[in-house]
């Protein structure tokens, strides 16, 4: 089986594909292409992206793309070679604040609790700025897509690098947090009963005093009331978190690492892979995006890493008669070749970086290299070009 078939298999068989990778490598575009590949393979697919990239919206033909899941107008694409229709493709660009609010609404037992949480300034600050809320929200959207819709394939784009790991950690860390002794410290119920409760309560009192010293009483009060409100959501939250945590580790889930062939990105990608492995998640595939310059106009996917200029004199004498208005044909031909030789040398450097990262990967994982396209991908046809590179046409 050729390596590109592996990614095609992943797209055809898996029910969840999580794309992770460092920033600036085109991860969101690759996620969209993976989603389109799924739809082209006849699977009803949704792509959830975290990155608010206008260009992705345009590439999907959805200039109004936002937090709401929308249908991508795939009917404008050329028919598949085998005449089979493209399955429905949906997409949403996840808005952290909006999703967080809808999460709270969905798991609030009643309207009063919901309102108390919304009015809490700590909650407001959390939804506005908590770095990790990206991960919580991604988790929530993932849960919704998997539970409430009949998608064959869900593609989840993630925030760059380190935050990608939060997606794995977030479900359980929040569930654990809400479940922990800590909540009891602050919310000891009807007052201490047994010795254990009394110890907890006195620990809580000390902790509260300490926190009060550091944060000031106002913030502390807000935190306590935030927790009071949030504690009622515990069960609902824990159930969802457990479900998401389980799905992320199921055999029908694949993680695809997206990197470029830039040394810094490859380093970040290698680190990311290590950390995923520590969390018992293995990479099923790696996409090296923008990882070579296409130097053969007739074969855009050919990788040229060595090029020489050993027949300049012949070239010059053959072409000169056809270049009457060019004053120094030899110089022009030499310069043009030198430019492409330097590009081939850059490709050789890219090869080295790709090999360096590939050497660390599981031999079974699919590796795909996509060229640096001449222009940025701006429409569905452009995206389809990338699909061709990723899974074959």
């Amino acid at each position, binding site marked *: 089986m050729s390596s590109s078939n592996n990614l095609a298999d992943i797209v055809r068989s898996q029910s969840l594909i999580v794309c992770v990778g460092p*920033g*600036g490598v085109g991860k969101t575009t690759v996620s969209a292409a993976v989603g389109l590949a799924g739809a082209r393979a006849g699977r009803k697919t949704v792509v959830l992206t975290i990155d608010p*990239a206008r260009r992705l919206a345009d590439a999907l033909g959805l200039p109004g793309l936002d937090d709401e899941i929308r249908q991508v107008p795939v009917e404008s694409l050329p028919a598949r070679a085998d005449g089979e229709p493209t399955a429905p493709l949906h997409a949403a660009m996840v808005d952290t604040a909006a999703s967080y609010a809808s999460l709270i609404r969905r798991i609030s037992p009643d309207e009063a609790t919901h309102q108390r949480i919304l009015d809490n*300034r*700590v909650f407001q*600050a*959390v939804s*506005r*700025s*908590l*770095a*990790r809320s990206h991960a919580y929200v991604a988790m929530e959207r993932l849960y919704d897509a998997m539970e409430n819709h009949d998608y064959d394939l869900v593609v989840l784009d993630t925030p760059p*690098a*380190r935050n990608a790991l939060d997606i794995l950690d977030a479900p359980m*860390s929040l569930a654990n*947090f809400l479940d*922990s*002794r*800590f909540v009891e410290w602050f919310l000891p119920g009807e007052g201490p009963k047994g010795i254990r409760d009394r110890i907890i309560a006195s620990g809580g009192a000390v902790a509260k005093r*300490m926190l*009060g*010293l*550091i*944060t*000031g*009483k*106002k*913030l502390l009060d807000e*935190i306590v009331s935030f927790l009071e409100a949030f504690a009622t959501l515990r069960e609902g939250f824990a159930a969802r978190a457990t479900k998401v945590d389980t799905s992320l580790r199921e055999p029908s889930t694949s993680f695809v690492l997206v990197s*470029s062939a*830039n*040394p*810094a*990105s490859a*380093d*970040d990608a*290698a*680190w990311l892979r290590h950390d995923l492995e520590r969390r018992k998640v293995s990479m099923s595939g790696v996409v090296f995006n923008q990882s070579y*310059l296409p130097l*053969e*106009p*007739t074969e855009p996917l050919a990788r040229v890493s060595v090029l020489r200029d050993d027949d300049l004199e012949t070239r010059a004498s*053959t*072409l000169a008669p*056809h*270049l009457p*208005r*060019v004053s*120094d*044909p030899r110089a*022009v*031909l030499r*310069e*043009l070749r*030198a*430019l*492409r030789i330097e590009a081939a040398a*850059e490709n050789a*450097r890219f090869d080295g970086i790709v090999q360096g990262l590939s050497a660390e990967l599981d031999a079974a994982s699919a590796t795909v290299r996509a060229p640096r396209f001449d*222009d940025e991908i701006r429409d569905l046809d452009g995206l389809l070009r990338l699909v061709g590179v990723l899974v074959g046409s």
Partner: protein
Amino acid sequence: MDSQQSALLQRRFVLMTGKGGVGKTTLVAALAVHAASLGMRPLVVELGHRESMRSVFGVDDIGFKPRDVGLGVHAMSVDVDSAVLDYMLEHIPSKRVAKSIVGNKVLERLFAAMPAVGEIATINKLRQLEAETSSGGQRRWGPILVDLDATGHALMFLELRSVIDNIMGAGPMKRLVEETAEMLADPETTRLCLVATPAELPVTETIELYGKLEGRGTVTFGSVFANRMPHVPLSAHSVAALDEVEAAAGAVGRADVAADVAWARVALRGAEAARAQIDRLRAAVPLPIVELPQLPAARMDAGVLGRLGSLAAGGVQ
């Protein structure tokens, strides 16, 4: 020392931000190497634990304590957990209580989940570093170059005062945030540099960040770096001859020459598109824009880092 050239590096803090993948880490490292070559004592601080700074300097680990990474540069990484523990040790009056709290997983979780706490602990660390002196009494570090990671991170950092204003009453945390906000807002002390590559998304993100911070009084901008500007080494004579060479290659059946021309066109179009993006940036952001060249895709040695840093510092008015 040429005062004009090192104006940026004379600040106590040089903050660097930009979209992921635009080369912030390399640029921070390059400026630090250049500062060291001028006899300064640069400290690189990366926020969060990342692999990139470690590999730029080729060292095995960069942790919570400044370490010598070679070329006259020290570097450290401030992760939220260590910064929070550090903060608690410093602010809780009884060391015994502090230690028991530091070892407490439950409280650790609380701090990890509380809004703005990570950022507050981080600025606390930055202030400590700023105040550090060597045995001779002079400041231990200068400049402190902070790799702020993504633009969202930078915003959070600089707007901390307004974020906590609503939720935090008087207390040591509030005082710390107030004092730090003033330090960051002082143009003599701190400059925020923006990095973009000449592509659509990084330029758009830079313009948006500028719009969000401009006129807010939270920070003074330094330079905007247009990193990885492509250069196509073709003479005007060659560029003018492209059509003819292409036709001639077709006439004599030299596909290799046709490919040379095709690639030259791709490269020229790329350079033109890059130029258009930087023009767009220039039109929207009235700050000095320093163009830095696209370098080969390889690890940089000390010489290249130093030259890149010198170029970056030299472009600053």
